């Protein structure tokens, strides 16, 4: 598996999809920063800007991961890899590791770019400890994102189908995150009266878990610099990463490759 990882990391370095997704995310970050710096009539705090591009992260990563792994299927190189692999799982794990590493690299570069450049244009209200805490949560989110789209592509086994499926899912996750966020941000009282849109009890708990388990929901919490349940978020991420990887290996090992 180490041999396959080495080969795939070299491929990642040269991957057009990887470079393009990084460039798109950097361009989006610049655009978001430009809008925040010019459109508001007050000085925007840096904390509101650092993770703002993460709202589009899921879509960009879905395209990158599905194109990267999908190329193995469309170009047929997977046949060479499976011919030499000790077992199918080694191939699947290798692809998952390389993809979540790619996602984590894009996340790190984009966050560092936003934090670095943002210092010159926005009011710096960011404490280093808070930044490290949020960065770590975002890092876990990026790994979950990479895992999720890798597993879908491995099971799908067709580049075009995988791109459509992953981007479609990323879009649904984004809409779902907007929906759960709109529910969770409601306060119990509004203008001195009970807020009819406020939900509590089981429905609030369910929406809260859905928001924490959804990588786009996690990204939306980071972008608003307000993470409600950081420990739960991490505790959900770990089984999600392990579960998705195990499911990917299991289903891929039974798959007929053409």
């Amino acid at each position, binding site marked *: 598996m180490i*041999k*396959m990882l*080495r*080969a795939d990391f*070299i*491929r990642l370095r*040269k991957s*057009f999809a990887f470079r393009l997704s990084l460039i798109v995310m950097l361009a989006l970050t610049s655009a978001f920063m430009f809008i925040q710096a010019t459109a508001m009539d007050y000085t925007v705090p840096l904390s509101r800007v650092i993770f703002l591009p993460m709202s589009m992260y899921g879509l960009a990563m879905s395209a990158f991961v599905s194109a990267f792994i999908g*190329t193995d299927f469309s*170009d*047929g*190189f*997977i*046949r*060479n*890899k*499976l*011919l*030499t*692999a*000790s*077992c199918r799982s080694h191939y699947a794990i290798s692809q998952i590791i390389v993809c979540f590493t790619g996602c984590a690299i894009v996340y790190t570069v984009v966050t560092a770019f936003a934090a670095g450049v943002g210092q010159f244009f926005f009011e710096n209200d960011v404490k280093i400890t808070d930044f490290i805490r949020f960065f770590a949560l975002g890092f876990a989110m990026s790994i979950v994102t990479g895992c999720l789209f890798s597993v879908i592509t491995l099971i799908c086994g067709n580049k075009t189908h995988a791109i459509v499926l992953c981007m479609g899912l990323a879009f649904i996750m984004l809409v779902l995150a907007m929906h759960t966020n709109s529910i969770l941000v409601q306060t119990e009282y509004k203008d001195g009266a009970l807020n009819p849109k406020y939900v509590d009890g089981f429905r609030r708990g369910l929406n809260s878990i859905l928001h924490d388990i959804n990588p786009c929901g996690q990204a939306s919490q980071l972008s608003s610099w307000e993470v409600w349940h950081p420990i739960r978020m991490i505790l959900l991420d770990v089984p999600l990463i392990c579960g998705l990887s195990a499911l990917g290996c299991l289903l891929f090992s039974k798959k*007929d*490759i*053409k």
Partner: protein
Amino acid sequence: MDYVLQTDGLKKNYKSVPALDGLTMHVPKGSIYGFVGKNGAGKTTLLRLICGLQNPSGGSFNLYGISNDSKDIVNARRRMGAVVETPAIYTNMTAAENLKQQYLILGLPSCDDIPELLKLVGLENTGKKKVKNFSLGMKQRLGIAIALAGNPDFLVLDEPVNGLDPQGIVEMREMILKLNREKQITVLISSHILDELSRLATHYGIIDRGRMVKELSAEELNAACRKCVRMEVSNTSILARVLDNMNTEYKVISETIADVFARVNVTQLTVALANDNCEVLSMQERDESLESYFISLVGGGK
């Protein structure tokens, strides 16, 4: 005889449709085994199974004597190279980069012999040209170069001359023969271009509807497809007596038809037959090709 690959009642079903239906075949070591069959006969399915891309639904196969159920089958597969269907190459990389990927996957210590491998397949001058700009023939040759990385002793090629121009076909044939003769690589070629296959193969396996119809060596095929004169006479027993007197090899097909396997003096023969009151009704030169032999076995147009 040593066999590189043996299958025993191998089955593969796609849902309820059988692609392989109890296929039994034997690929002798050092041979060029021509795997012949119509489209959809199950050729590519077999190659996918032995390459580990799919699992059999029933039956078994041995690679270098190692059963497909054994864990060691992985090591046996590392001794083979394969081009199944289309060449397995990254189109956005150069030829050398593709080979480097394969070398890394195989864990080969050095990439020093990549130029030599590229030269072997005639791609030494491709430089930084991306594979997506290669011709079909160049892609096929690169696919073979990748399959040859790691010095395999068993090469599996699926329709290697499909889509190649005449010069490409000749070059491909020469390369396969060179690999077989100089490096003693056993080659399994699946093809339905029978004329081309007959210039290469030392052994044949003819498959139809997922079953092996006939396995035979090139010598056996040549004997079956021997040039002859088919004679229709009024009485083949008289013809047999006359041919025996002339020391000529023949085979009686029916009471009125016989094949004569030698150049005969037609006048002398017809006079001898006329003297014994045997009429010659027709004479026809027959030269059965692999194609006609194949059609006679699997039936044409069905």
